[in-house]
């Protein structure tokens, strides 16, 4: 397209990057936060912050299951399905849940969850309605306010652009090893380029992996043509061949007594020996066609397959041992999805994934800031002569300010809404989400009118302050503050508070970098018009927004 392959790829890298970078920043930001979605959800439910957290105890499984069955039989007799959740590392509590029968025109009923406290018999039934960390998880592929299908196509489209941006970026980076160690400070767009290179290259395998596996996760929607061709469009038969143990069972309508769940435990133990049970799901309880499924905690296994040991609900007969067919293609597919979701990652690996995600956000951020600085430098002459900045430049600078400072601020707004919104308003969970987008939109309005450095400093200070104050918010709106949580060893809550402070501090640090040192001595700068001073003025002016 241009004179050389290198120049074509440079052009391509810039444009595939720029056209979708703000959507990608949203996706990367939300996706990175999703690594800790269970911890965020725990924080968002202060009703559970005392006397709830516990670890899995295999000796208590039988009694818990018995208690659960009696409770569910009493409170959820005509539910569609029952669930008993046992403590896992990331969801450290016991709870009984059920799904009510769907109403007219609804596809699913309501999901109700009651949490069993550590001591005492009274279950916790009134937990505030909130999406918690799962909001960010859904946000990164379903976006929001749009139908899921459309959002996923948008995200898929942007992800393909990202993949091409990554490949072209690698191809044009001739001195990839030498450049790794170069960081030129205070040189405007060159410094941003160095930062862009470092954040991209440092986590390059991760970026390639997360982008490609993201596409693979939704590949049946994006590329159904394999199934269309090889199975004549019969997706059901395709899925059947992949997991023959998965059978949808519809209720018959004839009442039948559910077998006592405890009696099935010896068989489960025989197949799984000591592996912890994660949850027990009972489909169509009380019906002739009821099914009991035991799911295990796969812990650090790199798999996303949820294969259950299944029993007939009435007779207690074992119908499936939970073994999946084992082929190269299937295992590859499973591993690729598992790599993306990262469910297998324990604390240290999860932290590494999170840091890589942050580097991904840094990659996108430095890329778009690099472009804005470069364009402003190009137009500096015209702007100095009185011309207005071009529409493209104003748009890029506006979007940069909106998303780069807006996303952390909106996240803080979401968690403030979680604690401060009254617990009994209608659509409470949706209103927490609305607060996220209201904050983002507010930042957009600010960016529309003012894109100067002072606007950036204000936005970063606001974001930094609101994030740093999260532990205070927690202390005021929960019965367990940071010190209590440390004493009780409730680490997910401690981690969340501390991470918010850390992020807030990072925003303050970024703000500090934007404080113009020459602005401290305005009189001297105006008075002295030496050539040296003029040159300095020009170089600082390029870093200054207008």
């Amino acid at each position: 397209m241009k004179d050389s392959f290198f120049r074509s790829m440079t052009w391509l890298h810039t444009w595939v990057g720029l056209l979708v970078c703000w959507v990608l920043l949203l996706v990367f930001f939300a996706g990175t936060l999703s690594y800790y979605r269970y911890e965020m959800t725990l924080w968002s439910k202060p009703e559970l912050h005392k006397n709830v957290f516990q670890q899995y105890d295999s000796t208590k499984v039988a009694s818990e299951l018995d208690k659960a069955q009696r409770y569910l039989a009493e409170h959820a007799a005509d539910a569609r399905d029952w669930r008993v959740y046992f403590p896992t590392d990331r969801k450290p509590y016991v709870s009984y849940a059920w799904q009510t029968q769907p109403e007219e025109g609804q596809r699913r009923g309501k999901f109700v969850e009651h949490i069993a406290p550590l001591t005492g018999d009274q279950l916790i039934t009134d937990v505030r309605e909130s999406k918690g960390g799962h909001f960010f998880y859904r946000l990164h592929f379903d976006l929001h306010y749009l139908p899921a299908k459309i959002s996923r196509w948008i995200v898929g489209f942007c992800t393909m652009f990202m993949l091409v941006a990554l490949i072209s970026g690698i191809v044009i980076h001739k001195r990839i090893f030498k450049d790794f160690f170069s960081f030129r400070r205070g040189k405007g767009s060159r410094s941003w380029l160095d930062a862009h290179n470092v954040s991209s290259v440092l986590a390059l395998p991760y970026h390639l992996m997360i982008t490609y596996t993201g596409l693979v996760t939704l590949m049946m929607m994006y590329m159904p043509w394999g199934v269309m061709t090889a199975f004549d469009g019969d997706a059901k038969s395709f899925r059947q061949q992949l997991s023959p143990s998965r059978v949808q069972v519809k209720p018959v309508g004839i009442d039948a007594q559910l077998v006592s769940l405890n009696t099935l435990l010896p068989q489960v133990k025989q197949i799984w020996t000591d592996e912890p049970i994660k949850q027990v799901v009972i489909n169509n309880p009380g019906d002739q066609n009821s099914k009991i499924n035991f799911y295990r905690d796969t812990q650090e296994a790199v798999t996303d397959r949820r294969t259950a040991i299944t029993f007939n609900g009435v007779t207690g007969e074992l119908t499936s041992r939970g073994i999946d067919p084992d082929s190269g293609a299937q295992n590859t597919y499973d591993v690729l999805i598992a790599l993306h979701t990262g469910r297998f990652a324990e604390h240290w690996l999860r932290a590494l994934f999170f840091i890589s995600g942050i580097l991904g956000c840094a990659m996108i951020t430095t890329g778009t800031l690099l472009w804005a600085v470069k364009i402003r430098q190009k137009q500096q002459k015209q702007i100095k002569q009185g011309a207005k900045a071009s529409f493209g430049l104003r748009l890029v600078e506006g979007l940069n300010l909106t998303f780069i400072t807006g996303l952390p601020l909106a996240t803080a707004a979401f968690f403030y809404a979680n604690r401060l919104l009254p617990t009994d308003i209608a659509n409470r969970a949706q209103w927490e989400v609305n607060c996220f987008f209201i904050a983002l939109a507010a930042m957009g309005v600010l960016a529309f009118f003012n894109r100067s450095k002072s606007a950036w400093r204000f936005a970063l200070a606001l974001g930094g302050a609101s994030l740093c104050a999260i532990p205070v918010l927690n202390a005021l709106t929960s019965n367990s503050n940071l010190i209590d949580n440390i004493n009780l060893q409730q680490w997910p809550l401690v981690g969340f508070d501390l991470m918010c402070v850390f992020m807030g501090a990072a925003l303050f640090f970024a703000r500090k970098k934007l404080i113009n040192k020459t602005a401290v001595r305005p009189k001297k700068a105006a008075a002295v018009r030496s050539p040296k001073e003029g040159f300095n003025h020009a170089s600082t002016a390029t870093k200054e927004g207008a």
Partner: protein
Amino acid sequence: MQTIKTKLLQRIDSNNFNVGLRAFSAIFVGYLLAATATGLLALALPLPPAESTLTATMLSFSVYACAGIWAFSVSNQWRALIDPLCLSGVFYLLILAIG
């Protein structure tokens, strides 16, 4: 005085048209190429149908990305459009022949 033909030729030779044509090819013809390649691999790979379908689908995004890169690196803008279009056609004919 420019004839309509000269004006059209000018438009076609312009940079905007070049970029637009390549973008169209990368996005839409690239998808067509990936789709036909997926279908062909799903039939042609010597694996059970479910596995060959999985493999073909997982590989499709590499095909799509390569098509995108290619559309912007080939020197002639028309080749960027015609070549992947013809290749997709060949794949499709092969699909009809096999399946």
